[in-house]
Each structure stands twice: as structure tokens, then as C-alpha cells.
């Protein structure tokens, strides 16, 4: 399953890159409507023939993105699930997509009921005017979607960050709101990593800096798997994920296993003590 999905990610990336470069830049036709040619293509590949509920009143997922993103290299994106994670029914998988990016599938999150609440926050690169969308797959097979049209402020791209390369892979957890025993508790994991897209030129050599990015983050709490995230370079520098988990008993260790596109492995952990 896992290798298959990885190759799917890559296949989708290359398939859409060609059409992207052919398209002229600038504003797409007025619409804030939900669809785009890129999405139509992706949808066929990822969810062939399946019904997707994209109606705000009935769907089970909401996406929160600023309409006018202040900084395209790091657009904050928040996913809110409108159902709790229970063993009976839960969000099994979350797809995060930036229609116009060279590699549109930014993240696929594989979830367990143990996260308590399937809300996530991360930061994405949005290179041009694009839909950002989330598709939630429930454990009963239903698909739910929400999308936002994002405009990023224009301007030249910033030179890539090249200091502290020796710290690549440093993985840090934070509990921004402290510990809530037996209740969904927000946590954040961040990996120091350039997440190079492969589209930036090195200023000194004027050669393309090869794509180099965090490919997966697997997070567990004690013995229990919380979620596996497969990521791509549409995720911003220093990839970060805010998620939930349910602290229980006497506490345990939050642990992240990280793998990047050079097959380097990193690990970070945080001992969670319950009051």
C-alpha cells in the first residue's frame, strides 16, 4: 500500500507539471467556483468514480485558509473535522491538495481513532492563485471535501535559507495548550528542513538546487500509532504539523519518526507527564 501511494504521488506530480508549464501565468478566469482543470484530472486518478460531498451544510470537513495569503512560501492551512474520532466512525485519511502547484498532492495523512479529533494545521507553498482543498475519507468509505481559493501576494521569491544545514532533521514537539488528560490535546511537531522544491537556483553556481524534502512523518504516543503523514515539497520549509492526541494514564512518550527524500531518518520525542 505504502510504496504504491508514494509512486502515485510522483506520477501525479509529473503528469501535471507538463501542463502547468504550458499554461500562461496570471489570473485564472474569475471563478471562485470549486473546480479547476487540475483538480478534475486529479480527482479522476485519486477517487475514480466515487461521490464526494462538497456541500458546506452536509460535509464533514472544513478548510480554513486566508483568502489573501500574506506570504506564498508559507500559507497557514487549518483542517477542521466535524465529527469526533471514534472507533465506530472516524476520519481514516486526509488528502491536502494545492491544485496549481507543480506537485499538487501536498500531503496524505493516514489517521487512527487515537488522535481523538482529526484537526490539523500545517503550512503550504502556494506559488500562484490556486485552490487549496482537503478531502477527508471516513472509515465507512465516504468522501468529504472543502476548498478555498487562495491568492498570494506577488513579488520575487525569497532566496532559499542556507544556514544551519547541520541541524537538518532536528525534530521538536510542542504542546501549545498544555496537557488535557483524557481529552483531545493539541500538539505540534516541527522538523528543521529546507524542503527544497527543486525549482530554486543556487545563487553561486546558478544550478538548480535538487529537490530535497521531508517525505514522511510517523507519529505515535506510547505504543499507539497516531498518524502517518506522507508529505511533498508543497509543504513549507521546516515542515510543521499541528494535530491532536489523547493523553492517558500516567503519560507516555510522543514520538516522531521522520524520513526525507535522501532516505535520511530522524527521530524526535517528548515525554508527556500527566498532572
Amino acid at each position, binding site marked *: 500500500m505504502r510504496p504504491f501511494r508514494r509512486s502515485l504521488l510522483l506520477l501525479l506530480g509529473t503528469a501535471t507539471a507538463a501542463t502547468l508549464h504550458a499554461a500562461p501565468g496570471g489570473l485564472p478566469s474569475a471563478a471562485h467556483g470549486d473546480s479547476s482543470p487540475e483538480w478534475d484530472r486529479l480527482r479522476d486518478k485519486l477517487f475514480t468514480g466515487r461521490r464526494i460531498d462538497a456541500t458546506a451544510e452536509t460535509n464533514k470537513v472544513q478548510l480554513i485558509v486566508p483568502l489573501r495569503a*500574506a506570504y506564498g512560501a*508559507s500559507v497557514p492551512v487549518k483542517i477542521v473535522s466535524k465529527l469526533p474520532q471514534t472507533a465506530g466512525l472516524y476520519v481514516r485519511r486526509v488528502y491536502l491538495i494545492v491544485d496549481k502547484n507543480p506537485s499538487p498532492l501536498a500531503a496524505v495523512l493516514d489517521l487512527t481513532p487515537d488522535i481523538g479529533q482529526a484537526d490539523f494545521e500545517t503550512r503550504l507553498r502556494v506559488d500562484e492563485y490556486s485552490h487549496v482543498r482537503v478531502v477527508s475519507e471516513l472509515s465507512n468509505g465516504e468522501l468529504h471535501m472543502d476548498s478555498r481559493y487562495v491568492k498570494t501576494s*506577488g*513579488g520575487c521569491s*525569497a532566496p532559499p535559507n542556507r544556514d544551519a544545514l547541520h541541524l537538518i*532533521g532536528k525534530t521538536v*514537539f510542542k504542546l501549545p495548550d498544555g496537557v488535557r488528560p483524557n481529552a483531545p490535546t493539541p500538539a505540534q511537531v516541527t522538523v528543521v528542513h529546507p524542503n527544497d522544491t527543486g525549482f530554486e537556483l*543556487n545563487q553561486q553556481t546558478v544550478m538548480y538546487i535538487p529537490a530535497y524534502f521531508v517525505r514522511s512523518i510517523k507519529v505515535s504516543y506510547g505504543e499507539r500509532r497516531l498518524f502517518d503523514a506522507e508529505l511533498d515539497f508543497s509543504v513549507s520549509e521546516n515542515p510543521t504539523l499541528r494535530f491532536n492526541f489523547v493523553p492517558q494514564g500516567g503519560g507516555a512518550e510522543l514520538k516522531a519518526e521522520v524520513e526525507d527524500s535522501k532516505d535520511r531518518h530522524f*527521530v524526535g520525542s517528548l515525554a508527556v507527564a500527566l498532572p
Partner: protein
Amino acid sequence: MTMHRAAPLLQRRSLLAAAAGAPWVAASAQAADAAVEVEAGVYLLPGQPGQPTAANAGRIGNAGFIVGRSGVMVIDTGTSHRHGQVLLAAVAQVTPLPVRLALVTHVRQEFVFGASAFQARGIPVHMQRDAAALMAARCEGCLKAMRAELGEETMRDTRVFKPDQLFDETHVVESIGRPVLVQHHGHASGPGDSSAFDVRSGTLFAGGLLDNKRIPDIQDSQLDGWRQALGGLRSLRLSTIVPGHGPAAGPELIASNERYLAQLERRCAVLLKEGAALSEVPDAAALPEFSRWDQYDTVHRRNASIMFLRLERRLLLDEPGQGAPR
């Protein structure tokens, strides 16, 4: 502050505007393309306020020139090949002396892309080596975006150029019969920032280091280097500053830019400490003192995000060593 300085020049400016009748000058850009004498023999070619749009042809950056005994030095080259031609025509309205060189002070689209028009006339374009490297690395992409935004016609014949003269260090230009100090400031507002100081009049062409009534863009900056460069400018005997954007001003302009950078950093540090989410930062980082500056609604919001991310990254790097690579 700046008004008393600009006022006596207004008359001259409107006269020049009336005289500048080159047929290829777009009507909307015409007034802005006339030279304004800010000190004896020192001229500002003012850019327009706002973001680059088709209506202003992207001509939002200042250029300028210094007329010496034997020739002219132009500082910054405009947004497009055509804009470069317009700037050269404006110089010709003022003096018959030949343009000996052009200096590109930093790598922003509204300063670099007119250089090909200078080269087409055999005028050598000077640039600091690190700035040239940044240009080579990213300006093709930038040019593509500008063609889409401003239109093919506006950007016709514009290309990423190769500087004729690269320099590494601060030096004095003597070739126009009037000494001009070209300072290299290291990585300040961007890699390879330089400025031009006309020793005789005390006029500084500040390039990317200073803006007037416009939010400085921190995207390419190294803040420590920038502060150091601004401090260094104080050792010059300054009478007038031609900033990268906005009207000419007096030496007090340095302090206003320093104050913006300091307040931006302080505000973002507070937000980080309070645990603000990145999504809240652009609104939460409001700085009322600067709310009337041009591009407050765009560049300031982006600056706030960038500053917040930088401070956050620094914190992340300093964090005790959880998860050392294995």
C-alpha cells in the same frame, strides 16, 4: 521634514514634465518620467506609488543621475527595456553630456530590468557580485511573472542582463568628472546591496537600504546587516537622500526606516511569545505609526509573516536538542 525640501522643486518638475514629450512615453507615466533636481546637478527620476500594475507599467522604483563635468552616472535602470529608454531620454532632456555608466544598486524588478536599454547604447552597467548572483538565480522567473502581469508590450525586449562590470568592494567612481562613492553594504536589504553617494552635494542614492513613506520589503534581507548599513550611512555628510521608493528626503529618513524595522521585530517577537498562529500574524502585527505608508496592506503583512517565521525558526534551532539526527 521632507516637504520643505521638495517644495521649491515642484515648479521645476512641472516644467520638465511639460518638456518631456518623447513620443513613446505612455501618457500615464509621463509626469513621473521627468527628472527632478534634488541638489545641484543631482536628479531624481521618480517612480510611482503602489504595486506594479499594467496602468503604471510597473514603474514603481526610483532612479536618478548625477551630472559631472565630463559625463553622467545613472543610478538604477527601471522596470523594463522601454523604461530604461525613457530614463535615458529624461537624462538627455537635462544634459547633452554622455552617460558613462549605470549602477544597479539591488535586485528588485523595478531597478534591474531597464539595464538592457543602457547596454544597447553601449553604456556599461555596474553591479555588485552577490547582487548579480541573486539576479542570475531568480530573475528569469520574475521576468516571466512580470510579462504575465504587465503585458508583453510593456515588457518587450526586456531580458535578464549580464553586468558589464562586477565589483566586490566600496570604491570611488571618477569617470564623470565628479567623485561618486559607491559603497558595498554586504547583505543588508538584500545580498550585495550598494549605494551611491555624491560627495560634492551630499546626496545619497540609497537603493534598497531606504524607502520613504513606503513599507521597506524585508524578504531578501538580513536584518543585522541592514541595521549595520543604516548605522554606517550616518558617517556620511548627508544633505539629501534619494530612497529606493518615495520622494527625496533629508537624513532623518534613516531613523524612520530603523524605527519600522525595530517595531516590526518587536511586535512579531511578542506575538511569537504569546503563541499566536501564523494565520493571525498579518492582522495582529498592525503598526499604527506606519499604517499610512504605501504598501502597508501588502508588504507590511508579508513582512510580519516573514519576521514571525524567522523568529520562530531561530527559536526552533536554539531549542534543546530533541531528536538529533541519527
